[in-house]
């Protein structure tokens, strides 16, 4: 009697069933793919009334920019946001997962989430994967105990700081913070300093670029300023653009489906012309 194996949707978590095949392939000299990273400059600072987070918006795949305007400031809870650097899939997945866990915890306790809860959930997940989940995070928020800012490294270590930077542009941004940061900044001064730090990363680090995203979190209120500054507009845009005359591209076969009926119309045969 033969046994049928039914492919039921798995219950969640990672599945390792292709690992052996992939190892066999790399043994034969076939390199594994590069993953989308978020080169990145991410920063956070604590000001008089709360926390300000900032991030650039470039996503890279090797040396190529694959997304000129991605979002690196992820929502965790109404009062907590998290910036992510490292492998894009890892930062998105880990922040989404902890965000769901936080919401469940919130329903369970009946209280607004605390930043340290998010911190512990993130660090224990990352530590259990021993750094293989490559996510470097700047976590910030305001809860009943006040404003908090933490950095989380891929191996699971954390720091609690008044100002923090992460990512490939972190040195450029930290230089700005170290010279200009002081306690008790106002909201405008804080936003200006964060933008300056991110711009420093954008212009000096090749892994960061495009626009500046800012998120201001205060007690009971948050403001997500997407594309707060756009210091890299596209210059010299040709106003006409490229136009291609209809019928320029030759196609062999025309099959159109209109409301369910299929009709084959004229075949046009010509070599592809270029402008």
């Amino acid at each position, binding site marked *: 009697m033969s046994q049928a194996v039914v492919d039921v949707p798995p219950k969640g978590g990672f599945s*390792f069933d292709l690992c052996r095949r992939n190892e066999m392939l790399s043994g034969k000299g076939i390199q594994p*793919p590069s993953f989308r990273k978020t080169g990145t400059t991410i920063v956070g600072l604590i000001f008089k009334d709360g926390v300000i987070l900032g991030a650039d918006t470039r996503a890279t795949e090797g040396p190529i920019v*694959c*997304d000129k305007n991605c979002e690196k400031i992820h929502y965790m809870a109404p009062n907590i946001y998290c910036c992510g650097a490292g492998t894009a*899939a890892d930062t998105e997945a880990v922040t989404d997962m902890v965000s769901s866990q936080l919401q469940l915890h919130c329903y369970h306790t009946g209280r607004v989430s605390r930043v340290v809860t998010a911190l512990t959930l993130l660090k224990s997940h990352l530590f259990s994967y021993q750094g293989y989940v490559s996510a470097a995070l700047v976590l910030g928020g305001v809860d009943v105990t006040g404003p908090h800012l933490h950095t989380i490294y891929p191996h699971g270590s954390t720091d609690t700081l008044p100002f923090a930077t992460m990512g490939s542009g972190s040195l450029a941004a930290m230089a700005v913070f170290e010279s200009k940061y002081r306690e008790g900044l106002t909201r405008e001064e804080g936003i200006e300093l964060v933008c300056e730090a991110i711009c420093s990363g954008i212009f000096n680090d090749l892994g960061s670029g495009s626009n500046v995203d800012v998120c201001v979190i205060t007690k009971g209120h948050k403001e997500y300023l997407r594309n707060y500054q756009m210091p890299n507009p596209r210059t010299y845009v040709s106003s006409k*653009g490229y136009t291609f005359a209809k019928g320029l*591209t030759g196609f062999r076969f*025309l099959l*159109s489906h209109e409301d369910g009926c299929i009709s084959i119309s004229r075949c046009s045969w010509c070599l592809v012309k270029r402008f």
Partner: protein
Amino acid sequence: MSIFEYNGSALIAMVGKNCFAIASDRRLGVQLQTIATDFQRIYKIHDKLYIGLSGLATDAQTLYQRLVFRHKLYQLREERDMKPETFASLVSAILYEKRFGPYFCQPVIAGLGDDDKPFICTMDSIGAKELAKDFVVAGTASESLYGACESMYKPDMEPEELFETISQALLSSVDRDCLSGWGGHVFVVTPTEVIERTLKGRMD
């Protein structure tokens, strides 16, 4: 050589005015030898949702079969088709599940969502979504494709103009890539009709 360069592929999806277009090349190779010139990379999930899969062809086919399975289950349970945004999240989750032993596949998803608003998205092989408002590309020719689309794309193109633009972008880029080409396959989808065309390009 990289695993993505084993079979070769080129995929673009572009957004137009209340429509989208998705195009692929037609070559299937084993490293430098061409073994098929009519390989299908773009699959229909439902009338208003298409997915193109670039990268290792065997993983593309396996992934497609798993996605069709999941979508059919969804249709049975929900009694409706999946929205493109939901489908993109599903693909992302299926790819991330294999984070440490991934499918060597980069999907390009294109569909018409609520109110027939066009939606396009691509991901890397572990499911990092990139939602774009203009165009997305994938495949061995991706560097040329980025350049061609960046210069040829205009917002709010009508279906006919969109077809011309995406075809020119695809054919120009695959001409500069040994591993993809041998013509093209273009789907232009509007709320009322789907037009599928095959392009003749350089056969080398």
